[in-house]
């Protein structure tokens, strides 16, 4: 049987979703026989690969670079899943939204007593990714086929949904999990 190609990525997030993925423990071994990891924090691959079957996107879309990533992911992937609450609702990264980009950078980087006077990503020629006006849930930017809730999602839930996706099913609304 041909292996199902899976990619994972973490955008504006804390890495907790990926830690929770590791909590699948020995079930990972079972899964590894059926999947091929083509992209992810532990895969040394620089660009979003083509012809991916399932992509788990964790984190909200907060910078121009992340915007490019998710668009590319959508182009190259059959089933895109919002993975964890930052991807599903915007969650903690979106706490900056009511405040505004400049104000939040100012607050964090140039408080009194802080020697750093520059606001990262604000100048024209910066090599750094620039913050978008708002941190956004993934489905506001690209079409999303599956939502995996939780901060972080429970390992059992990840296992359940990934197993369904491997069978080619997108179990929307069939699974009860806490929202938000």
């Amino acid at each position, binding site marked *: 049987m041909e292996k199902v190609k899976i990619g994972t990525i973490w955008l504006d997030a804390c890495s907790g979703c990926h830690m929770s993925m590791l909590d699948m423990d020995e079930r990972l071994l079972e899964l590894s026989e059926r999947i091929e990891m083509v992209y992810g924090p532990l895969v040394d691959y620089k660009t979003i690969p083509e012809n991916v079957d399932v992509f788990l996107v964790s984190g909200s879309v907060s910078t121009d670079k992340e915007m490019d990533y998710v668009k590319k992911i959508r182009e190259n992937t059959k089933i895109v899943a919002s993975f964890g609450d930052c991807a*599903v*609702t915007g969650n903690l990264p*979106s*706490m900056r939204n*009511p405040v505004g980009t400049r104000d939040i950078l100012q607050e964090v980087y140039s408080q009194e007593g802080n020697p750093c006077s520059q606001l990262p990503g604000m100048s024209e020629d910066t090599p750094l990714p620039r913050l978008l006006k708002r941190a956004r*849930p993934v489905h506001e930017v690209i079409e999303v086929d599956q939502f995996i*809730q939780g*901060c972080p999602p429970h390992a059992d839930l990840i296992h359940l949904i990934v197993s369904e996706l491997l069978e080619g099913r997108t179990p929307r609304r069939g699974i009860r999990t*806490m929202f*938000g």
Partner: protein
Amino acid sequence: MVAHLNRKRRDPVRTRRKVKTLKINGLDVSGTDEQTILEVARENDISIPTLCTLEGLSNIGACRICLVEVEGARRLLPACATLIDEGMVVKTKTPRVVEYRRKLVELLFAEKNHYCAVCVSNGHCELQQLAEDLGVDHIRYPYVYPELNVDATHAELGVDHNRCVLCQRCVRVCDELEGAHTWDMMDRGENTRVVTDMHQNWGESKTCTECGKCVQVCPTGALFKKGSAVGELEKETEFLPYLKVMREEQ
């Protein structure tokens, strides 16, 4: 044919109750003419999701989560604020009402800033529970992200307007059971807020008796006890109906 609100109940001169029979989801049920669709449904183990209504408080039909279809009525009607009537045919689970309820819950999430992961009520929140019950897996509307404040001027209690769903339970419990009427509403539309006294700081309120009932009835983490950590605040509302009966007997 459809009578709204249970005003009758407050009438001190009790007229004789009349029994009415009706159908809910095809089931023949009955109740008295003082009962709402919601009450009769609950007596018959038919569950209808609710948010603003709470046993022991008056019904004001603020949230519309309990909408049901009633044959012959053009609009959907709030089960908590509609009295039963003879021959009524009520449906509580049609695709139309289920979709409306989902939309309402999604709009509640979209219009304020509910950062559940860092909320004192995470996991014990009635809004989260509704979303789960209704199968909400993402919010289809763009989030508004309004700039809202937190009033932490009271020594022990606080209000975070980011989490308020405007159910007015706090307003009702403070008025109807505590008799203080510290809470009220101000402004309208998207600017609607709950306020203490005449929009003064809670900590400086002359009327607040510090009883804490408002915190207990608040369905989200909007009203909280200071010092509670994430997910730590569990609220208790069971005391309300008893308190109501006791007050009435006095």
